[in-house]
Structures are given as C-alpha cells and as structure tokens.
C-alpha cells in the first residue's frame, strides 16, 4: 500500500511533487498557482484561468482546441479555482492516458503536456491582451454561473450562511460579490491579472498516476523555470475565524419547500486529529450522532451533518427540514454536542470513528486525484503524512484529547434560510 512519492524544491516558489503508482493507466499533470487572496483581483484571476482553457495560441478557436484534446484520446485540460483561508489556488490540469494504452502504443503524453503548457504560457491574445471574443463569452458564462447558483438550494443557502458566519472577514466574500468587478473587467485588465498570476504565485507542479518520462518532466520544468518570476511567500494554511462577541442569529428567505439550517461553532485551539474525530462522531459518518438522532430517531430531516472548515477553525452543522421543526432540530443538535463535550460517548463510538477515518485515509491510494489532493494538503498544512501514517495517527488519539478539543468549540452563528411561501408545493 505504498506509492512512489517525491517532493523536490526546484527554485524559489517552485516545487515538483511526483506520486507514481504503476497500477494506473493514466496520469495527471497539474500546475497550481497560489497567491494571497485579494478581493479585487480574485475574480480577474478566476476569469483568466477560465480563458486559459478555452483556447491557446496554437489553437486560437475553442473548437480547434477541443478537437486537439479529443484526438489525444480524450486528454482533458481544465482549470479550477479554490479559496483556502486567506489564500487562493488556481490549478491548470491535464489528464491523459498512458502511452502504453494508446492504440499501437502511440506517443501522446509529450503532445498532451505541450498543449497544457501552451494553455498556461502561450494563451491566445490579440494586441497584447486576451481576445475580446473569448473574454466576453467567458465573462458572460461566469456571470450566468453565478446567477444560476440560486438553482441549487443547498449550495445557495451555504454561500449565504458563509456571509453570516465569517462576517467582517475576507472569507465572507462569496461569488455574488464578484459581479461588479467582473462587469468592470476588460481583456487588458484580465491579461494583466494573468501576468501577475504567473510572476507572483507560488508554483506547485504535480505529476500523479502512471510514471511520466524524464523528457515530459523536463519539458514542464524548463518552461516554468524560463519565466521571469518574483514569487510571494506562501500564506499560512490556518487563518482562524474569531468567535463573535455575541451569537449571530440570522434569517433569510427564498423560494423553496424546505428550510435550510446552518449552525457554526468556532474554536481557538485546533488539534487536527482529535478535532476530526470529534466531528466524525458528531456528524460526518453514517453512524454519527446527528444522523442517528436528528434523522433516524426524530425523523426530522433527510440530512443533518457536520463538516469542518479546518483552515478557519470552524465547525458547521447543516440540515434541510420543515420550518416548524427548526427548534426541535436545534435542541437535538445542541444536546449531541454537549454530550460529547461532557465525555458522554462510548468506546465503541470512538473506535468506530477511528476506523472510519483510518479507512478513509487508505481509500486515497486508489485515485490519482485523491493522492494529489492528499499530498497537496500535507504540504499546505506543513505535515508530511502518508495516508497509512495518518490512519495510524488517528488510532493513537485518546478520549481525553477529543473531549478537550470538543470543549473548545463555542456557538458562533445560527443561520436559517426559510421558504418564502411557507414551504407549499411549487407551482407547475
């Protein structure tokens, strides 16, 4: 149950991580660019990342660019953006089958990696800025995406709750707040943001899956090293959210049949392993206290779970239910948290939570994406556990450590998204 893992520092702000396992028939090449979050620039960086995977200098039209990937046996180049605490991470990634499995063992990995590098380093530009046409189309698409977030009631409620939970912090800025900046953006301002991304961001290069050839690796490293760069220092992974002086109670409403409840608890001290065991016992495993009590015993909801925004030291409990059951659910949730804080849990519950987390760690070995995420987070958190090592570490946590961690969490925010029409059926 091991993988061939190696992390190498290449230059200031550039590192290479290789995670190989011969059982995989494909590989992923990812270039992650990490910068401190900036409210005004984030939407521009996000739009730039989108534009990089629509076309490139060699394939200026989107259709040509897509066809080029199609011809490489469904090679897939995508971009994504992510915010963790006070940092933002932009990833341009390639997924491609191994040369071993192409028909007639055709060599495609070098071509696919060239295409990835072309996207990142040689975008399609006109007069020194992004093409007006694709700029307008990608911006319009992003604005539609933001508008359509209302379609997913859980996601929309979660974003609205984020504003209340992290009020006054950068983390309270949600996609709806980016609309004005996007409307003011120009092909030039987004191109400038792209140049800044390349020169200032810390660059983490990943190869995961079946091993790639030395020439493929060299191709990527030479291209990145050739850039003129002055990278910023990495931000700390953790940026704890301060506990509010008074608990914030907030309600909003939208068109739906269900109410959505979000309750946030925050802590000042965060010891990852016992905190994760606490959260697992409370609400993130199939036999958690919230599942067994709020759902199974009281039949109040379909889901009631707990998740951890670990970089913010914040625990968030979520449930979807009828508005008249909100108080019952809140009482039941508080009771379960208090019980764990008092040490009122069995050894069996604790063992089950340890087993659940340990097994979850080991499951990472079977996905090149999960392995990539695993080792990236190890780097961000300043730890270096393999999945197997962390599975063992969970086993060593004591009951007392869990109680201490649970007691550190205090109620911070209660956010409810109510149905506008009292939850009556939608009109056909």
């Amino acid at each position, binding site marked *: 149950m091991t993988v061939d893992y190696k992390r190498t520092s290449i230059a200031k702000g550039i590192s290479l991580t290789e995670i190989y396992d*011969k*059982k*995989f*028939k*494909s590989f992923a090449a990812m270039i992650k660019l990490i910068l401190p979050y900036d409210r005004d620039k984030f939407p521009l960086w996000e739009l730039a990342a989108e534009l990089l995977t629509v076309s490139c200098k060699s394939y200026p039209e*989107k*259709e040509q660019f*897509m*066809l080029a990937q*199609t*011809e490489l*046996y*469904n*090679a897939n180049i995508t971009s994504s953006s992510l915010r963790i605490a006070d940092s933002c991470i932009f990833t341009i990634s390639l997924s491609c*089958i191994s040369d071993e*499995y192409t*028909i007639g063992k055709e060599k495609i990995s070098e071509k696919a990696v060239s295409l990835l590098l072309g996207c990142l380093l040689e975008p399609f530009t006109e007069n020194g800025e992004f093409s007006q*046409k694709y700029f307008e*189309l990608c911006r*319009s*698409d992003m604005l*539609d995406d*933001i508008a*359509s977030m*209302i*379609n*997913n*009631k*859980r996601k929309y409620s979660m974003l609205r709750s984020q504003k209340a939970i992290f009020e006054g912090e950068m983390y309270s800025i949600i996609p709806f707040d980016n609309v004005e900046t996007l409307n003011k953006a120009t092909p030039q301002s987004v191109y400038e943001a792209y140049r800044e991304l390349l020169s200032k961001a810390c660059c983490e290069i990943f190869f995961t*899956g079946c091993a790639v050839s030395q020439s493929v690796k060299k191709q990527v490293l030479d291209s990145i090293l050739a850039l003129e760069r002055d990278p910023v220092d990495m931000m700390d992974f953790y940026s704890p959210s301060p506990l509010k002086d008074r608990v914030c109670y907030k309600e909003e409403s*939208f*068109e*739906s*049949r*269900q109410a959505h409840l979000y309750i946030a608890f925050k802590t000042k001290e965060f010891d990852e392993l016992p905190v994760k065991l606490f959260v697992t016992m409370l609400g993130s*495993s*199939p*036999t958690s206290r919230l599942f*067994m009590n709020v759902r199974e015993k009281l*039949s*109040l*909801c*379909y*889901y009631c779970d707990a998740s951890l925004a670990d970089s913010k030291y914040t625990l968030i409990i979520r449930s*979807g239910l*009828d508005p008249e059951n909100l108080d019952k659910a809140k009482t039941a949730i508080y009771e379960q948290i208090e019980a764990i804080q008092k040490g009122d849990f069995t050894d069996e519950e604790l063992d*089950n939570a340890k*087993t*659940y987390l340990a*097994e979850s760690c*080991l*499951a990472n*070995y*079977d*996905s*090149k994406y999960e392995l990539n995420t695993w080792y990236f987070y190890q780097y961000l958190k300043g730890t270096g556990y393999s999945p197997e090592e962390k599975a063992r570490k969970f086993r060593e946590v004591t009951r007392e450590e869990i109680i201490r961690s649970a007691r550190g969490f205090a109620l911070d925010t209660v956010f409810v998204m109510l149905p506008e029409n009292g*939850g009556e059926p*939608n*009109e*056909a």
Partner: protein
Amino acid sequence: MKLEPEIIRSDLIDEEYKLYHHPSGVDVMIMKKEGFTTTEAYFAARYGSVNNCFKTVQTGDYISVPDGIAHYLEHKLFENEDCGVMELYAKTGAVANAFTSFNVTAYTFSASSDYKEPLRLLLDFVQKPYFTEENVEKERGIIAQEIKMTNDSPSRALFFELLDCLFYEYPVKIDVAGSVESIQDITPELLYKCYNSFYNLNNMALAIAGNVDEETVLSICDEMLKPTENNELSCRFPDEPETVKRKRSHITRQVGVPMFNLGIKCKPLHGLELEKTSIAADLMLRLNFGHSSPWYKKAFEEGLVNSSFSYEIFCDDIGYFIMMLTGEAKDPEAVYRSIAEEIEACRTRDIDEKRFRAFLRSEYGAEVFKYNSVPECAESMLYHYLQNVNCFSTLDVLSKITADDVKNAVSLLDLDKAAFCTVSSK
C-alpha cells in the same frame, strides 16, 4: 461443486472479469484489480420505480403498488430486527450506501481494508427485511424531506416535466421517490409483498471489484446465499404510443437563467442493439451539437446558449430511449428554432470524417480512464449486466462502428416525437 465462470475479457485494454451463475440464483461478477487497495460491491435487485405493477406465483394476479415504494423499501432494509445496518458496518470501517433508480435497487459498500465481513453483512441484511407499523411510519418523515429537497431542484423538476410530456402512461415519468402524497399509502404489508416479489435471489446480481480474491468471494456467497425457488416474477407495463403526450410545457421556479430541455422519443431497444444504437446516437449528437460542433460554436458565440448546454441519451433495456438536449438560455424559444434548423441541415450533410475518427479515439480513451477507478469498474459490470450486455461491449461496438452508422442515427431526430419544456422565474 466448483463453479465454472464465463471469462469476459478485453485484450485491447488488458482488463477482465468473471461471471458466475451461483446456485442460489444470483449472478456474481468479480473483477480483480491488481495493486488496488479498495473494494467496491453492488448487490442489486432488478427492481426500480417503473416496476409498479407485477405478479408472482405468490400474488396470483397482477397487483399495483404506490409510487415510490421501491425507494421506500431501500430505506427500510437498513433496519434489522435488533439494530441498524449502519452500526454493523461502522465496526468494519466499510461505508455502506444504496440507491434506487428507474430499473434497479442496489446496495453497496466501499472498503479499504478487509472486504470479507462487509460482504457478509451486505449479503445478510439485504435478505433480512424487518418492517413494522412503527418503523415504516418513522421513515415517512425522512423520505418526505428527501422528496421536498429534490423537488427544490429546478433541473430535476424540468427533467420530470419533460418525461411527463413524452410519455402517456409509461411509469418512467414518475419520480423515483414518488410524492409526499403517494408514500402515505405505503404499509409494512405492501413492503413485504414487494420484497418477496423482487428480492428473490433469481432476480438479483452481485458485482464486486478491487482488491478481491475470487475463491473468497464465492465461498462467502456459498455461505450467505442459499438456492431459492424462482417465483416467476412478471412485470406489466402500459402500452405506450410512439407519439408524445404534450409537445410543449413551461413551469416556474426561482432560477438564475431560464432553462430548457428538448426530448426526442425513440423506439425502445434491447441488448446489443440498444448498445449499438445509443453509441451511434451519442456520436451523432456529439458531431452535430457537441461543444466542438459548428452549431455549438455559433450558438455559443451568438449568446444563444452558455457552456451549460449538453446532450444525453437517456435509455434502458426496460423500454425507453430518449435523446435530450438541455441547457440554460435567455431565449429558449430561439434555441429551439436553431436546433430544429440544425436537425434539418444535418439530414443531408456528410459526416465530418476527421472529427468522427477523433471522437472514436476519445471514446476509447474514456474507456481506459474508467478502469482506473474501482467504483466505476463495479458500477460498469452491474450497469452492463442490467442492459444484457457485458462491460466491454462498448469497446467492441466502437471498434466496428462506421460513419454510415452515425449518419443513419440522424433519422432518430424526429421533432414530431419531441417535447420541449422550459423553466423560468415567475
């Protein structure tokens, strides 16, 4: 007695699995994945939301049951007489789950270390129904919340509105979970009746993939699955005309951008014929309406559609075949007109050979990617089994398909047998 398996293999991508006809009546599919850590298993009954009128030796005549009962049954099987199934799984570290779709109910687990105990549990609890007035009543509130949650999704509402337009009576138009109203009629007696009819081992299959050993899996099957008499299950479906019930519909929901769904009703197909036609139809839609097609380029650049536009072949061996084109658009009617014009144009247009060849390579690549994932391997074995073909039939079809086959699939685009549904805010 040693069971002899059917060995199902693809030399092209160097993958294989074995199919055993177990004496209990269960078909057991095992795909051993060298080097992988995890194991994924599906224990499934050919029982979905469409099977709402049936008979067996025990029921005598055909009986009809309330909408959503297959899904309700799936929820209730997780409760044993003495404890919850999830609690038993928790001791093993495996994660159990289940789903009900139109044609199947499947119980699954995913394990990273030992798979033997989770497999015993899986085969055991699915064979031990325990329904009481009290525990059936308790589940009603939970499922009602699940139904309300899914009803809040405009894309799901649009999907079922489309099916309601396309079909007169065929039960695929009914939401898998039923409605808050229909589940009120579900009783322990009805659940037992459905269970005894559809969870007969002759109507079930096990698909398991990953870090497994064939002998161990079979020995657990021998221990847990006992030969069962076939109950001669037969399902009745209403006669469904080839035409559609309604051609247009509009619903209102709070949405960011209006959405549309165009569905074209085609003749139902079965087995390999279904596999071949669905692959040809998929390639035809990709050539004419995919994100690299000239139509999409024009529609996207003119702002008619955004990148959410997609197409899908929604079909099953049990008797439906729909082609769907769906997405968001500020002016859905303009999209409809544009698609209709394009359909006419592609009837006389030759297949773009270069793109066709590229798509074949891409489809082949997608198959290679699939076998990198243990859950996808298990799911694929079960999915293809339910369609009465094998896992590698897609590769076989792709290796033989011609541009003419794809060109012929254009004839399926008959707008006289289509419905167009939209959703927008009030």
